[in-house]
């Protein structure tokens, strides 16, 4: 086991290094120059543009810039944003809390609701309930999140006035302590509901189809033939086998959690990582982008290793020696 984890960690490190190398080069090869974008079309100043390009080392070749970047990363320094001159680590760090509050809650709710309904629908395969949730799941699966978000705002904020339109806190009130927490929760309801509605169908279908698939396997038929109780077969043998695909996709979702959800964060003005990444792309804020890619790829590698280890516990057929 230990050796396996060591091997995985090493290959993970290699993957991180490769992906950072790719991302670093690709974003800099894309047309567009951060300093020129900053200068705009109102009154761009050539001397200023050149001075800033020199200051940020943009006049050097990409390999030179990459070597400088690696040297700094080795010292734990991800560099400074071209736009705000603030430390990239600080900029990313500030976004982790709000990103997780939104995306992690939404993923956990979606996986729980989706899996439970999926299992139930599979047990009642072909029933009215099964038909109903299946068709609903297709509807929400096909609904674009940003549109659903706007509809939620129109219905629950603008018309019914139940929830705030956007943002994370009420800017007129100066809430502290528990009142602040409750206020953030109120602001979370609409974006989380939107995300849960669009993500649940995914977990629902995976749970439903894998339960159905396991139930049609020969060993289940054999159990049934021996006269074993239906509920015992289901809880002890079907569930345990059927849960594996859910763990896999949950692992994937958790791995990409930190990169946030650009569209939902934008529609609800939620201060998450997705928006930071999006604005950094349009402004070509290379250091921030490279920083986000680095952090994201590290998290993905760690999540993948954890999922693999988890498999070992859930599925006794898998052993790492």
């Amino acid at each position, binding site marked *: 086991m230990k050796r396996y984890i060591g091997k995985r960690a090493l290959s993970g490190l290699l993957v991180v290094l490769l992906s950072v190398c790719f991302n670093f080069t690709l974003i800099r090869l894309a*047309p567009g120059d951060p300093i020129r974008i900053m200068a705009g079309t109102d*009154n761009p100043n050539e001397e200023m543009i050149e001075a800033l390009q020199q200051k940020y080392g943009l006049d050097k070749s990409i390999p030179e810039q990459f070597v400088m970047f690696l040297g700094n990363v080795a010292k734990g320094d991800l560099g400074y944003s071209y736009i705000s001159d603030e430390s990239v680590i600080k900029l990313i760090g500030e976004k982790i809390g709000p990103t997780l509050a939104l995306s992690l809650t939404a993923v956990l709710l979606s996986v729980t609701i989706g899996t439970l309904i999926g299992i139930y629908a599979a047990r009642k395969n072909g029933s009215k309930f099964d038909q109903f949730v299946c068709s609903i799941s297709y509807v929400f699966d096909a609904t674009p999140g940003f549109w659903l978000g706007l509809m939620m705002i129109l219905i629950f*904020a603008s018309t019914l006035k139940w929830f705030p339109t*956007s943002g994370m806190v009420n*800017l*007129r009130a100066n809430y502290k302590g528990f009142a602040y927490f409750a206020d953030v929760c109120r602001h979370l309801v609409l974006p989380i509901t939107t995300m849960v509605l669009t993500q649940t169908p995914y977990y629902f279908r995976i749970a439903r189809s894998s339960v159905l698939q396991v139930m049609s396997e020969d060993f289940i038929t054999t159990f049934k033939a021996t006269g074993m109780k239906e509920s015992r077969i289901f809880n002890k043998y079907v569930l345990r086998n059927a849960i594996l695909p859910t763990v896999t996709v949950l692992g994937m979702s958790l791995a990409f959690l930190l990169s946030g959800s650009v569209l939902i964060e934008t529609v609800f003005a939620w201060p998450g990582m997705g928006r*930071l990444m999006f604005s950094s792309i349009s402004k070509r804020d290379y250091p921030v982008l490279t920083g986000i890619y680095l952090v994201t790829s590290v998290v993905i590698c760690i999540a993948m290793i954890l999922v693999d280890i988890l498999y070992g516990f859930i599925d006794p057929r898998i052993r790492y020696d």
Partner: protein
Amino acid sequence: MKFARKALTALLALAMLAGCSSAPKEPAANPENPSEGEQTPVQGGTYIIRQATDPGSFNPDVKGDDMATYTATNVFNRLVKTTASTEIIPDLAESWEFSEDGKTLTFHLYENVKWHDGEPFSSEDVKWTLDMIRTEGFQSNSFKMIEEITCPDANTVVIQMSSPSAAILSSLGWLGTFILPKHIYEGTDWTANDANMHPIGTGPFKFESYEKGQAITLVRNDDYFMGAPYLDKLVITIIPDANTAFQAYMNGEVDDLMLNIPSNEIAGLKANPDYTVYERASNNRTYLTFNFDEEPFNDVRVREAVNLGINRQEVLDKAAKGIGAVPQYYMTPVFAWAMNDAVTIPERDVEKARQLLEEAGYTADANGMYMSVTLDLFDSGDFKDTATVLQQNLKEIGIDVKLNITEMGTWQQKVQVDSDYQMAMLSGSQGPDASAISMRVHSAGAFNLAHCKNAELDALLDEGAITTDQTARAEIYKQAQVILAEELPIVPVKEATFTVAVRNTIHGHPYSEEGIHTVASNEFSRVWVEE
């Protein structure tokens, strides 16, 4: 000394006329508007303005950043400031005068001005800031004529110039010229000083906090030298999506969208008795420019055909939903004193346009097309819709236009840096002074995308920049318009207007009648809200 002030007064009067004439309807639309009465201002309250994205830094002089403008205008002061009707009014400088030769400009500053940290403000702060701005600031281009700045006493600043400048006051009242505290910045790297994220100014509001992606909070400065503002707090909230922002506005979570009301919502607000919609002339215009170095637009007849072929009224109606104006002159009409009525933009003439293309040696193919060209534009505002209308217009004169729509960074690389384009569309401020046109059409202009090289035009623009007599200046720019009409480095497509909605319970708004002549265009120091 007197002539420049007189000229300025004339300019301001014209600007006022321009401002008023563009908004003649609102008093009639709201005859019983309660905001026009003699009410006692209400003290207190939180006022929330929306902007789309985060600011980079709160040092407003280093890099151009629209997202720092609300904060900068309310935390800092300039020597002079520009109102929403483009008048120049006193800010830190109570008065100013030019010497007889026009090369010396003396500012007399307000007394008893204090920085937000309690330190006294003086002419030394002005000298230090202006010296930084003219060497390292993003507006350094505008202050090349300054030779030396001196401080005879704590309340006087003297600017010595190498040549007279007609534009210096407008430039000082524009962006990138906010006076910074010398005692905090001197001897440090002004791009990385801690004060850039926690600004200390002299303005009506003090900086309190900034939560990224959420809001910037400013609080009332009780010691403001022009009198404390009415509001307790001014909050600038960050909402990226325009539709969400509009819902938040209608739900009362945001008090002000400023210039960013979705164009399809404006008609609804105009009809709503609770709001007053102000439309003010803007110096921003959308225009086409051409690559002068390559076929087919190296031939002026082809550029003329495009100029004759586009239907500006249709662009305004269909793409801009009627928000804006049809351009009539080759320079922005905001500078009404410089408009040449003899060379206005011609009416659409499809026949003549086709004839010009024939004369240029092109022959129509089976579909009636003389040529196929590419129009490069970036995705911004109503650009896509505008380009679609233009595409249809030009098809009618026999030019098949392919649209190449990218994001701004890609567009800049292709059009501005590599000059790898045929026809491009963009918009941009044509101010703050009439001389700003140089940047776009002078052979040495920083943003001369067309690579226009006309010695006569260059000479006129050079002269216009150093002439201070308004009548003489007007003559120069009128001549320049004759050449602009012949050369066509830019083909104006649409004039922008500043469209702002103000709830009737809000008073002293910078775009309202109460604020249009008295505060800077983004200043909220005189705003108060009825309970």
